[in-house]
């Protein structure tokens, strides 16, 4: 079969069990990857799976359906911990891209500069993968295995992004540095989420994108921030904290610059997030 547009998840999973597909949802990655050439693989258009569209908030946390678009996310009533993710949503391409592209697709495409990854890492996000064999949940950092590589099996479909209740607390921030205002691929991104108690950091999450094959959390910095007074956070950040980054030189910037900029963005994001607490 060369094309299918199922309307129920179980049918989609049946298709995936039978052959390899190019999965199409918002089209914002599939089509740019096929400029000037045909899509040779069979296409599974999952945009009709309406059950995957919603963003739900429950006691257990927040569940972002795999077909939820960036603009759906922006319109959702979500706690301040999601402000950083919403800031990222506004900076995804343009309104046109936000109205088509899905948050889940951004993860499946696994670009090092994916806008959604750093804020979702600060939200301790997991992804739900379904197949006819099983339904499994993987932490985001285990799902993203390398440069444009994921743990998604050929018969699996991402069905949701899950944020646990305890990660929906606190305040957050996101910063994207690019060479122009709109429609820009990041040079560096920083995302921060802080939960506080008594004027001090109770829990910190810091993630950097576009400075390694996969966006990563700066866990040493997160530990050093824990317990720190909220008005002194930028001073805690040192260049040692960005050691885990492995940026490259490319058209957009040099590697040393990316390290420097990551430090600056993290400091600024910490100040902003702390100011929102």
């Amino acid at each position, binding site marked *: 079969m060369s094309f299918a547009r199922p309307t129920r998840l179980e049918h989609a999973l049946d298709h995936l069990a039978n052959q390899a597909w190019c999965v199409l949802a918002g089209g914002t990655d599939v089509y740019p990857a096929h400029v000037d050439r045909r899509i040779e693989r069979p296409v599974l258009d999952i945009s009709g799976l309406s059950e995957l569209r919603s963003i739900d908030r429950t006691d257990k946390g927040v569940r972002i359906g795999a077909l939820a678009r960036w603009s759906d996310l922006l319109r959702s009533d979500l706690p301040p911990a999601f402000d950083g993710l919403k800031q990222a949503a506004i900076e995804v391409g343009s*309104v046109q891209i936000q109205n088509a592209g899905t948050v889940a697709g951004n993860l499946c495409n696994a670009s090092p500069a994916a806008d959604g990854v750093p804020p979702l890492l600060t939200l301790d996000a997991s992804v739900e993968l379904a197949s006819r064999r099983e339904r499994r949940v993987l932490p985001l950092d285990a799902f993203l295995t390398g440069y444009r590589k994921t743990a998604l099996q050929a018969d699996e479909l991402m069905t949701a992004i899950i944020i646990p209740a305890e990660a929906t607390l606190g305040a957050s921030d996101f910063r994207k540095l690019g060479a122009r205002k709109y429609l820009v691929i990041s040079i560096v991104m920083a995302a921060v989420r802080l939960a506080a108690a008594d004027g001090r950091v109770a829990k910190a999450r810091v993630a950097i994108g576009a400075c390694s094959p996969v966006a990563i959390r700066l866990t040493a910095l997160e530990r050093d921030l824990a317990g720190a007074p909220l008005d002194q956070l930028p001073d805690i950040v040192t260049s040692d904290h960005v050691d885990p980054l492995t940026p490259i030189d490319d058209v957009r910037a040099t590697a040393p*610059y990316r390290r420097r900029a990551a430090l*600056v963005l993290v400091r600024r994001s910490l100040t902003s997030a702390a100011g929102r607490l």
Partner: protein
Amino acid sequence: MINLGIEAVVNGQKIALDVQPTERLTATLRQRLGLTGTKVGCDAGDCGACSVLLDGEVVCACMVAASQIDGREVMTAEALENDDLGRRLQAAFQRHGAAQCGICTPGMLISAFAAIRTGADLSEEAVGDALGGVLCRCTGYRKIIQAVIASTLEDVSWKADEALSDVHADAAVGCSVPRVDGIQKIDGRELFGADGIPENALSLKVIRSPYHHARFTFGDLQAFIEARPGLERILTADDVPGVNRHGVIPAFVDQPVFAEGRARFKGEAVAAVLGDPEAIERLKVDDMPLTFEELPACLEMEAAAEKGATAIHDERPGNLLAAGKVLCGDVEAGFAKADVVLERHIETPFIEHAYIEPEAGFARRVGDRIEVQCCTQAPYMNRDALADILGIEAEQVRILPTAVGGGFGSKLDLSTQPYVALAAWLTGKPVGLVYSRPESMMASTKRHPASINMRAGVTREGQITALTFDGRFDTGAYASWGPTVANRVPVHAGGPYTLPNYRAEARAIHTNGPVAGAFRGFGVPQAGIAQETLYDQLADAIGMDRLAFRLKNALDNNIPTVTGQSFRDGVGIKACLEALQPHWARACADKENVDRGRGAAGVGIACCWYGCGNTALPNPSTIKLGLRRDGSVVLFQGAVDIGQGSNTVISQMAADALGLPLDVFRLESADTDQTPDAGKTSASRQTFISGMAAKRAGEALRQDLLRHANASGEARLDLQERVLRVVEGDAIREVMLESLPVDEAGFVALVEGTFDPPTTPLDDNGQGEPYALFGYGAQMVELMVDVELGTVSLTKVTAAHDVGRAINPQLVEGQVEGGIAQGIGLALMEDYRPGRSENLHDYLIPTIGDVPEVETIIVEEPASAGPYGAKGLGEHVLIPTAPAILNAIYDATGAVIEELPATPDRVLAAIESGPGANPQGPNHEPG
């Protein structure tokens, strides 16, 4: 792939269609439904030209699968006129001059429509957020923002054609009349290169070298074709009946239509496959019997110019294509008189034109003639080149230019034309070809990368005593306009200043890079960056205000230029600088009061001059005007309007010269069978040269009509219905047009006006009169630099440009704003890397959020050589922006940028290594 039945509502109409389910919605709309108002610029969501509404939300149709509109509602630009808000937006776009070439306009309108209808507030920032996904390369976005905001505030009953009839006889020049070809640009009906290709046309796929330098051989092409139903033929160099070469300068015609065994740049055409569109889409290039052997490539000028470097063309040793120089005075003596001598080095990269319309063409054979419909800036040059390639007479070729979705110089050269013409000529079948975005970027010409060394000496009093310029320009694999750059740059490299001791040399050097050709300024913008930033350092070194320093050295009437040419009138650089003075004082004061935060505020200034027309070469234009019995005046206007507005300003000048109002004119746009040769749209020559030709044509027709009435030159003309009234004092003579004899084409009177600007050749030292006039300008940039990140945010650009006479002030502003946007790109983000940035997400051009407020000051120092005193403007406007930005960065931080673009990493590095490594920057006081 199977076909899928879908049902949808498109522009209010229910439709049922069989589609290939994953075809792009752009293809469904354009090809199946004929809705060509939705444009295709990139197929990757990078440009937004294909924006449509899907269930009321704006999306890029290029990334929507046809299967996904089943059961949904689609609205395209064609439906805007059915809605009150849509009509308001259209009227506001036309009234505010928000459409130039018009290729982005449908996407802009649809995106604005979606935002306003969902109740977004209309602050400038909100408009930016709404339109940030649509790129425009012409307007600089400012008039688009104005129009969107105005659409909700202004009277909607306003109609563009009524506005035209408001302009009275003798009063068109100087009026901001709306674009005479504006309506079709806002209602989605304008036909660009890809829009008029008939359904029955065959398609072509051009096969290109994947290597910068390679040898290649073909296997059994015939067997390949025969095994694939739907394929018709493969064209290679062996199929070219005439000369397998094209170029733009007769002595440098060196670029093969198809490479002959050796490809000299990545993207060079080696063959083309002809077939029905579906077969061409199925074609797998990798399966073709074609073998490439990669050869060592030379991509750096430095290496290409070295002794012993492999010659890219055997007949050009040292890879030197052309060199130009200008020498005057005694440079050594001049340096000896200087108190301070400083040097400056600048490197700039390839810059891509990035018009939103990729090249497209269509050809059909009509008997022993070939007709080619294409987006072009140079119909007559195209005609002659195709005749040579096909081995036929020029009269056998007809070029029918479509609307051009941006050109900026690159659409002077041939692109799709030889391929469609050859295929249609050989097979007798109609053939269409539309470049994809990567193909357009890979195959088209670029701005020359430059490596420039400059040196200048100045006295303590601020007099420049000597200046030397040595510029190398990477002209890529073939000549294109490289010789023009080498000749034009040395004339302009010192800027609009008095320079008694001057030596400038420019060389165009071949590499295996993309072909560098014409791009708004022919190398002068690169030279201007070196020169204007060096002047700031000179002013600093002697502690003089930067504007005052420029004013002190500014050129003036009756003072010889570096080529020894003096102008009696029209040297307007002082007037431009004086116009900026109050703004400069204000900006320098404001800067001190800015809340710096992490930022450093800076103000920069830079000047330009630019000679209009070809450099020291003949450059004529002819315009034809005819009066019909029905009282219409037909303007045969072959000066291609690529968005700059030549259709409008040439009409305005013809109207005033004739003495009749604009609304009696009917425009016949370029068609090499109908319109006389008005030259190419380049070198900022159309307003000046074709304008003068139009003025002469208008005057000639007026004389003709006055003769019918035996009236003197003082008489006033009036055309009512079919009666021409000639009014002189109290005497009124009526001429019944029906009573006059007509020629075979139905004209009562038919005249031509021709103008060729007076120039003289340059001698061995570059002395002579290369241009009949120059235009001048000065721009001031205010900005903030984030000194921790090296990012630059522009606050305002104030631009004073001397246009001699503003034929249409709104179009002048449009040129200024658009040129500034391209200058911003050149300064801060544009960097084309062959093989690495052949798309519009790795190659960045400014978006709507990157162009700040622009205040245009129109300066009018009439030049007697120009029509109504007018000068050209198109290229001038881009030149000062980049150096003014670099000067403002220097002012803010002390950072001296040597390599462009000034991306955040380079700015930060320059701040830290700069002499003024303190964020306050050098101290400048207003003068």
